[in-house]
């Protein structure tokens, strides 16, 4: 008889040994996998379960001087097509295109990509939330979307030429977006993604965090920018002009408060970006300034003591022949003092005085006023204008230059000339950045003319607004200084009789200027083209609205007393 207990003990022993053996096999296997083949399996696991992704950084915001956002970021939705079947894809593309505006060439390109059987095709990138919802509602089989950051300009066309725009990959291509791209774009980061067998992410490890781009604060004031844009649009439309530019500055600090160029564009709509529209005329438009340049000529004359204030100059009754060329005035004048020459903007008066000037010295003063070189303002594409060296001057250059011909300037350069008078003789470099960045204009202020000359020039310019060609630029209750300019445009090598650049450049209030404004209207039509008629009213409107906005009100004594008295509460009660 076999002992029952012994049999069961044997069985238990065998079972135990089996478990033990299984345990040992596992231990050996684990030892093999985890110790001996560690590197091999680690690599295999990494390949299957880990992925390093580049995370794009968020672009820095652009704010105005009152911290109002001018450019920010929002989610954009990018739609793509998974091209599984050419026929189905073409059908879905046609449905998708009904939602968005596609040019025929774009449609052709997409269709050709589908026929080439490309597996992944971008259809539309960075569309808005509403557009995404509309697309989703159509229910596509092969069209999906991913979320990307898109640049948003909440004020649409406001300050469009200053801000510029970005391309589809958020790279700055125009304006401040381009100039300060290095600071705005930040730095991409890297993330290690751990995913399971079903490719579902269960852990994300930040290897290098993305660094958000630096924010930029501009000197622009949105409200003043809006005032400038509104007035400019009105003038350009009223006179059917080709375009125009307005620049508003704080003369003592050199800060640009507004810079408008017409026509405007919406930087949110990348399709609207064409060369002519996106040009910032404030810094890119080079033109012959005409009579506004007499500020440079007069200042030089006074500075070099070439003329006494009381001295009378014969203005040849409107026609002056010099070296075979006839120079004219709008109205015939006899004897005028320098102040009267400026007030009535006599070309002949200035020319006759300028002929007394030493060419080199006149050239030197023009350079000091900043003519012929860019101002260094933090905007891309700035033109430097053009100022010929004295050895290249013809016999007619000096008289022509004294009245603003044979010299090219930008509106900003001319405004800086006016600022020099407004600040008592200082050239203050312009800036559009409030925060300190390495790209900030490095130039320093320097004296151009003496304070006495500047003070006398202020008197001349006040007279222009009070009783001269710039009357329409006067703001009730304030004294202002300014100069009008009407320059013929050079068309096909000849000065046109129909095309003009009309400008008015001035500052307000006269004694302690808060604002300086340059208004330049390109080619106004319809018979009215004088700077005093076309541009001076724009100056008046902008100056008046801006001073009200800044809560700078005129001295009550400047107005008729009954108005104030009638509004006194006690009198209202009676």
């Amino acid at each position, binding site marked *: 008889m076999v002992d029952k*207990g012994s049999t069961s*003990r044997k069985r*238990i*022993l065998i079972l*135990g040994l089996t*478990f*033990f053996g299984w*345990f040992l096999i596992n231990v050996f296997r684990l030892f093999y996998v985890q110790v001996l083949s560690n590197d091999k399996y680690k690599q295999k696991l990494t390949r299957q379960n880990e992925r390093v992704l580049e995370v794009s950084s968020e672009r820095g915001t652009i704010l105005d001087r009152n911290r109002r*956002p001018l450019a*920010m*970021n*929002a*989610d954009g939705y990018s739609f793509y097509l998974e091209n599984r079947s050419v026929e189905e894809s073409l059908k879905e593309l046609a449905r998708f295109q009904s939602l968005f505006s596609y040019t025929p060439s774009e449609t052709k390109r997409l269709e050709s990509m589908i026929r080439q059987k490309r597996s992944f095709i971008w259809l539309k990138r960075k569309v808005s*939330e509403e557009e995404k919802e509309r697309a989703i509602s159509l229910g596509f089989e092969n069209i999906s979307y991913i*979320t990307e950051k898109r640049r*948003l300009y*909440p*004020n*649409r066309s*406001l300050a469009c030429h200053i801000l510029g725009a970005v391309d589809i990959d958020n790279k700055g291509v125009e304006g401040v977006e381009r100039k300060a791209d290095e600071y705005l774009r930040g730095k991409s980061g890297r993330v290690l993604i*751990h995913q*399971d067998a079903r490719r*579902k*992410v*269960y*852990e*994300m490890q930040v290897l290098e965090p993305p660094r958000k781009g630096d924010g930029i604060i501009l000197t622009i004031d*949105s*409200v003043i920018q*809006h005032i400038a844009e*509104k007035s400019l649009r009105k003038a350009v439309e009223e006179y059917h002009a080709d375009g125009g530019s307005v620049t508003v500055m704080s003369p003592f600090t050199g800060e640009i408060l507004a810079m408008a160029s017409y026509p405007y564009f919406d930087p949110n709509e990348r399709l609207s970006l064409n060369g002519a529209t996106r040009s910032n005329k404030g810094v890119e438009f080079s033109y012959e300034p005409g009579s506004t340049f007499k500020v440079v000529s007069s200042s030089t004359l006074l500075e070099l003591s070439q003329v006494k204030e009381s001295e009378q100059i014969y203005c040849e009754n409107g026609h002056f022949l010099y070296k075979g060329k006839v120079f004219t005035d709008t109205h015939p004048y006899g004897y005028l003092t320098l102040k009267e020459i400026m007030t009535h903007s006599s070309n002949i008066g200035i020319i006759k005085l300028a002929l007394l000037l030493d060419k080199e010295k006149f050239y030197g003063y023009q350079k000091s006023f900043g003519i012929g070189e860019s101002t260094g303002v933090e905007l891309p594409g700035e033109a430097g204008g053009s100022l010929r060296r004295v050895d290249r001057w013809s016999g007619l250059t000096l008289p022509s230059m004294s009245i603003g011909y044979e010299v090219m300037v930008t509106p900003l350069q001319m405004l800086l000339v006016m600022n020099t008078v407004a600040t008592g003789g200082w050239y203050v470099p312009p800036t559009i950045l409030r925060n300190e960045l390495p790209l900030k204009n490095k130039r320093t202020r320097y004296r151009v003319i003496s304070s006495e000359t500047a003070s006398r020039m202020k008197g001349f310019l006040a007279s222009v607004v009070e009783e001269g060609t710039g009357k329409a630029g006067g703001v*009730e*209750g304030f004294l202002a200084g300014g100069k009008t300019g009407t320059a013929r445009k050079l068309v096909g090598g000849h000065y046109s009789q129909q095309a003009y650049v009309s400008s008015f450049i001035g500052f307000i209030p006269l004694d302690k200027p808060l604002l300086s404004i340059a208004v330049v209207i390109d080619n106004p039509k319809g018979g009215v083209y004088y700077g005093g008629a076309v541009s001076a009213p724009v100056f008046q409107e902008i100056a*008046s*609205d801006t*001073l*009200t906005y800044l809560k700078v*009100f*005129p001295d*009550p004594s400047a*107005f008729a007393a009954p*108005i*104030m008295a009638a*509004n*006194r*509460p006690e009198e209202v009660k009676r």
Partner: protein
Amino acid sequence: MKPSTVSARAKDRPSKAWGFYLAMVTLFSFLTLFYLWHHIDVLRAGYRIEELKREITKRESEIQQLQARKLELMRLERVDSISRDKLKMVKVDPKTVIREEQLDGR
């Protein structure tokens, strides 16, 4: 008496071994289960954290969208046109502005 003592000891040996093996297997199973539970729990927590992170990103994005919408509604051009055309507001005439110090006769 001696042989019987030996046989009793031999009799006890399998039960002790059984106890030992059982304890080992239980311990091993327990450790294995604990390891698996711990691992799964960590994974589950990972999924939850990722889900919450996505939720935060979504909410942040919503805040950003709302801010953008607010700014669009506060656009100066729009405010200007509503105040003029709908509310019939007019531009301030500096002549009609009375400052406090004027009323005080200062």
